């Protein structure tokens, strides 16, 4: 039954990569998309899926998903329409050994839910002291390297970039200067000042972005900057791209909607790393994503209740995101009046291109990783409604519009609502 011939009919088919947004049927055989519009010669469907009123788009590609328990998080991924995800190396233990990477890949393949693309640790134990064995990690399945949220000194960063560039490995950085960010828990602005929270200045991001861009241009490494949070940060990337530096970046979905104001009275669900910044920063992030400068990631970080039932500064940063990525992207598209096909590019073909993976499109011949969703179905965010073990989100109690009805990975139905 795994490799059945599927006929998805009556849908509105949106494929940002190929500029499609029209009613078209889609045909799947042998794990791949075999035709769009008319069936291939001799096609006979094992199952015909009526997608009337629904949208068929490429399975979502997430640039940053932290997996706590692998199984529930991958179940959450496909429930959110995510079929491919990159996993940062700050797992426990960190992904600094080929064996660990192989085990993660094998485990996720056995589960047969979303595809997992590990990001290897740039340094051993992410300690920022010695380079990790990038060759071995790449052979084990790592598609890039990163320090996750751990600091690295600039000399080692330069060496790491040189070494990665030698083998054409992609390097991902979450840009934050460790000294400027020291002890900080919130954006160094009006809200942190009023609430008496230690601030993280915007310069913590811009200094790190400028450093990374400078070293990347010297070394020629392919650089991706994760989770930019500030107007000044994206402006630096915009300028670098203009001077043709091979750099890409993303913005976490929460930062596209929320600002420091959402901390309210110390709401630890609004504690993020990097922090939620000013309204003007949020608006600049929206503009950057809109113009295609930045992709969107879920920054999915399951945090248990104990990690949030603490004073703001002591709470664990992060929120659940996989199951909110699609509805929050739809909400943003609606708010900024962006055509759906363009908005969906930020969570499908754009991140797939950044990761350099087969995915994020409905091209004939590509893997049948598909998301079928009802753009208008309303649902309320509650712990029970989320499959992820991470139940914490600033959106608890909110009504979302847009719900995934079916997810296919390699032509197999892995989620059906």
């Amino acid at each position, binding site marked *: 039954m795994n490799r059945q011939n599927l006929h998805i009919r009556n849908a509105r088919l949106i494929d940002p990569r190929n500029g499609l947004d029209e009613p078209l049927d889609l045909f799947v055989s042998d794990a791949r998309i075999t035709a769009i519009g008319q069936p291939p010669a001799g096609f006979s469907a094992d199952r015909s899926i009526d997608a009337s009123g629904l949208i068929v788009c490429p399975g979502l590609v997430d640039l940053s998903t932290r997996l706590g328990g692998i199984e529930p998080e991958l179940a959450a991924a496909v429930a959110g329409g995510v079929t491919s995800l990159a996993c940062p190396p700050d797992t426990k233990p960190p992904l600094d050994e080929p064996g660990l990477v192989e085990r993660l890949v094998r485990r996720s393949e056995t589960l047969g839910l979303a595809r997992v693309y590990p990001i290897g640790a740039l340094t051993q134990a992410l300690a920022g002291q010695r380079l990790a064995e990038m060759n071995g990690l790449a052979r084990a399945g790592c598609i890039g390297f990163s320090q996750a949220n751990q600091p690295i000194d600039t000399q080692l960063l330069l060496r790491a970039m040189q070494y990665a560039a030698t083998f054409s490995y992609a390097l991902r950085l979450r840009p934050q200067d460790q000294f400027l960010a020291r002890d900080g828990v919130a954006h160094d602005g009006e809200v942190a*000042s009023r609430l008496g929270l230690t601030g993280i*200045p915007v310069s913590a991001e811009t200094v790190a972005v400028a450093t990374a861009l400078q070293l990347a241009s010297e070394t020629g490494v392919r650089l991706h900057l994760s989770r930019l949070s500030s107007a000044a940060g994206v402006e630096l990337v915009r300028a670098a791209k203009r001077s043709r530096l091979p750099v890409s970046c993303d913005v976490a979905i929460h930062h596209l909607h929320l600002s420091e104001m959402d901390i309210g*009275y*110390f709401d*630890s669900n609004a504690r993020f790393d990097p922090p939620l910044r000013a309204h003007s920063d949020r608006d600049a992030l929206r503009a950057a994503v809109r113009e295609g400068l930045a992709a969107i990631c879920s920054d999915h970080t399951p945090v248990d209740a104990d990690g949030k*039932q*603490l004073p703001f500064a002591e709470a664990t940063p992060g929120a659940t995101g996989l199951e909110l990525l699609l509805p929050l992207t739809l909400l943003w598209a609606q708010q900024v009046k962006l055509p759906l096909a363009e908005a969906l590019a930020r969570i499908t073909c754009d991140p797939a291109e950044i990761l350099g993976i087969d995915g994020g499109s409905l091209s004939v011949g590509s893997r049948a990783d598909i998301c079928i969703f009802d753009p208008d179905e309303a649902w309320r965010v509650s712990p029970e409604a989320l499959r992820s073990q991470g139940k914490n989100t600033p959106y608890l109690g909110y009504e979302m519009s847009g719900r995934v009805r079916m997810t296919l990975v390699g032509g197999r139905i892995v989620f059906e609502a």
Partner: protein
Amino acid sequence: MHNPQLNANGELTHLLSIEGLPRELIHQILDTASSFIEVSDRDVKKVPLLRGKSVFNVFFENSTRTRTTFEIAAKRLSADVINLDVTRSSTAKGETLLDTVDNLIAMHADMFVVRHAASGAPHLITEHLRRLGRNDVHVVNAGDGRHAHPTQGLLDMYTIRHYKKDFSNLVVAVVGDILHSRVARSDITALTTLGAAEVRAVGPKTLLPAAIERMGVRVCHDLREGVRDCDVVIMLRLQNERMNGALLPSAREYFSCYGLTPEILALAKPDAIVMHPGPMNRGVEIDSDVADGPQAVILPQVTFGIAVRMAVMGILAGN
């Protein structure tokens, strides 16, 4: 946004911060405090307002002085007062803040007076009480991190009102380490709420928080400019650990730039008062001649503080 310290009728159920308190409510607290002033002058210094109630002083951060004033205030209201030095007991054994709170609720606490090193800790407790449906248990913030020290803010307002009567023409300077000061935040919020004509935040750039002007203050880096023609000068304590390091080179240099001396004070209005939340660092933020001089009202602040805390606890217990 729902203000967690007010109930649906706009009455005070917890005191967490001055922020969000309407001007009339602040005056109501100060008026109530005024009626308690004479209690302290009686032979029997007690009123039965909190008889049979248990007030738990839960101090996660040491402060004998503040705890004592709360204890006196609660006892003058006839409450049973239990002092818990949490720094040395449960948290040292790994118990979380809310575990501690649950235990104290099980001991039938009616009111928590909480001091905690983390900004927002009392908010976390009130949110927990709300989830438990325990709107009969009240929380008084006795200082949380850098965020707020609302009873100090209120007693400072009581002091200013006592000496200056009306806020609308007042120029008030808050001088020193505003970045780390919960007293400064509570004073600034109270003063702007009560309509002070001008509130100045005076200090070096290293000790002023980002976007402080958004709190409605005028920023001054020069002490002379900051104190000139003031009606009230509020000096802040400079913590020992901040005297030498990245924020300031030395206590000596700090005193030379921001220490309040008689010469500087002479720039203020002749009838200006000088306040300090205590404990003072003589020769660091304030010269002894000023601290002990005729314009200082630092000891009356302490006296008023007990009446203000009685007022707060009395009002909370009634709501």
